[in-house]
């Protein structure tokens, strides 16, 4: 996996693989840091890899691993002195995705969510020490991708569903039968609250999330559907913070497809 991690004074490119985690300067010129995973000498039945990347708290890079542990790296404003500050061990299954709050978290809601193969979601508040605020147990379906916005957790599942959870209480607020196959990617546009979902069924959908601050109603509305004919969508990302344009990648596809307003 690859992700840009934005901080007040720098941007890092973070890569995860079977060997571990690598961090590069944003122009790819130098490797700032690398962390090797403990790889057993003989291949074990359980695969070893790092998966799930997010920048959190203006200062940390969080990376998930196949053991369920989440590694928290403290990033200095410049230079290569990255340190492993904490290892969070609340998940028992391989981590699938990690997301940081992209809007304004309501009081009591965390600013980081981690997801795993069993569908379990953990909510954290970041800082010198990370605190577990809540755990949403999985229901047997893998949560493949997750986003966090204004205290709403949007989670995509292997059975094609999107579920919205309230970060503070851990309660389910919406359930969408969104796709006919495994959801591979979710992305959120923080300025508008638009949600993008891409799945193996070859469809990409744009949704509108909303949260009424007075009534505390959380809603999701379908905006747009795109069929990427004969392509299993593997990646989908908004290209601007308002969510007016987005890009899509797929299996066996050497092109990046970009979609925008007509």
């Amino acid at each position, binding site marked *: 996996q690859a992700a840009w991690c934005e901080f007040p004074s720098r941007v890092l490119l973070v890569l995860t693989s079977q060997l571990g985690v690598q961090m590069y300067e944003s122009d790819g010129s130098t490797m700032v840091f690398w962390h090797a995973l403990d790889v057993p000498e003989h291949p074990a039945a359980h695969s070893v890899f790092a998966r799930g990347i997010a920048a959190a708290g203006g200062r940390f890079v969080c990376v998930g691993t196949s053991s369920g542990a989440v590694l928290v790296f403290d990033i200095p404003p410049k230079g290569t002195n990255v340190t492993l500050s904490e290892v969070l061990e609340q998940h028992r299954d391989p981590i699938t995705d990690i997301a940081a709050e992209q809007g304004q978290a309501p009081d009591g809601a965390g600013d980081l969510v981690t997801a795993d193969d069993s569908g379990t979601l953990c909510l954290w508040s970041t800082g010198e020490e990370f605190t577990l605020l809540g755990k949403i147990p999985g229901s047997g379906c893998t949560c493949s991708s997750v986003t966090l916005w204004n205290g709403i957790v949007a989670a995509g599942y*292997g059975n094609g569903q999107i579920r919205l959870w309230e970060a503070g209480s851990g309660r389910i607020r919406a359930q969408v039968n969104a796709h*006919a196959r495994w959801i591979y990617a979710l992305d959120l546009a923080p300025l508008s609250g638009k949600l993008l979902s891409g799945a193996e*069924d070859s*469809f990409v959908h744009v949704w509108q999330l909303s949260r009424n601050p007075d009534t*505390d*109603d959380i809603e999701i*509305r379908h905006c747009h559907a795109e069929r990427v004919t004969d392509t299993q969508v593997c990646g989908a990302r908004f290209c601007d913070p308002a969510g007016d344009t987005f890009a899509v990648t797929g299996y*066996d596809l050497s092109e990046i497809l970009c979609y925008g307003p007509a």
Partner: protein
Amino acid sequence: MSTRTLPLLFLNLGGEMLYILDQRLRAQSIPGEKARKGERRSLFVFAVMNDIISAMFKKNFIEELFKPQDLYSKKALRTVYDRLAHTSIMRLNQASMDKLYDLMTMAFKYQVLLCPRPRDILLVTFNHLDAIKDFISDSPGILNQVDETFRQLIETYNCLSDGEFQLIRQTLLIFFQDMHIRVSIFLKDKVQNSNGRFVLPISGPVPWGTEVPGLIRIFNHKGVEVKRAEFTTAGNYSTPQKEGSFELYGDRVLKLGTNMYSVTRPVETHMAGSSKNLASQAKENIVPNPLAKEELNFLARLLGGLDIQKPAGGETGFRLNLFTTDEEEEHAAQTRPEELSYKVINIEATQEPGRREELSRILGELEVAEPRPGSAEKGEDLLALMDGL
């Protein structure tokens, strides 16, 4: 990547190979054949299938297969099937072997891609095994070997999570990435486009455990449903009737992995303009993989322990042609694009002194009589062979 992928890759590709060989063996007709020889021919098909299936499910081979390990390289895997195809008295020219391997890999790639759930890859494997058991239903010894493998599959895979199956599926898809060989049976059935990419249908039953897309349910902060909404898309999905069986016997429901070849349908592949990203594939062939020779030594050792059938009376083995005529086969061999050649590794028996003796022994066991000049008539060989049975 998953270290539990190789058994599924090997067994499914093997299954596809058997479907194709079975179809070609039955279809390859000899002009002017008498009814009496027709009986012997089916005996012959039976013998070839038996030998290959027996080799595929040999206990020590299956044991090694199931050990957690990374996938073999494309070259190493191709060599395994080369050897496997030749464990009977049947012989295949390079062109026919290339075509066979192309068909096998594209068929399994299609099945992996279209699996509704990641877990369904196991149902595809079971479909192949069910058919294999049918091929050798009259041989209790080999049937036992296959059942044992079946049980080991159930034991190893039935307990894996969806996430682990998705990792296996991703490992397989990476292995098959950028392969776009066009197969005529797929083109005719409209499951493959003329650019080599498979058609992904947006209709039909959704996977077991998935709901038909369209419904949005909203809950209030107390968890009570307060609103329902619908959205529509181009898709036209339906609810599945039942789940396939993961037991030793049962209705698999899924059709992927069942035999799609019948005797009357010829199967062709098209090479020209078949893949856009040849550069990456070609690079893989050129850069030598230091581990490849190591893998081959290991596999060669295992397959070297098999009883290799030597044709009776020093006659040449029966040569199977995957094309409709010898001229076609010849033409295919000459016109195959360089980038798509499999470049099967030849074991250099002279390289490492320590291994020399063992390798020579294995190679000696694998050696088959070269075709004698003058015995070019396919029909003659076959008739002579029949008389020898």
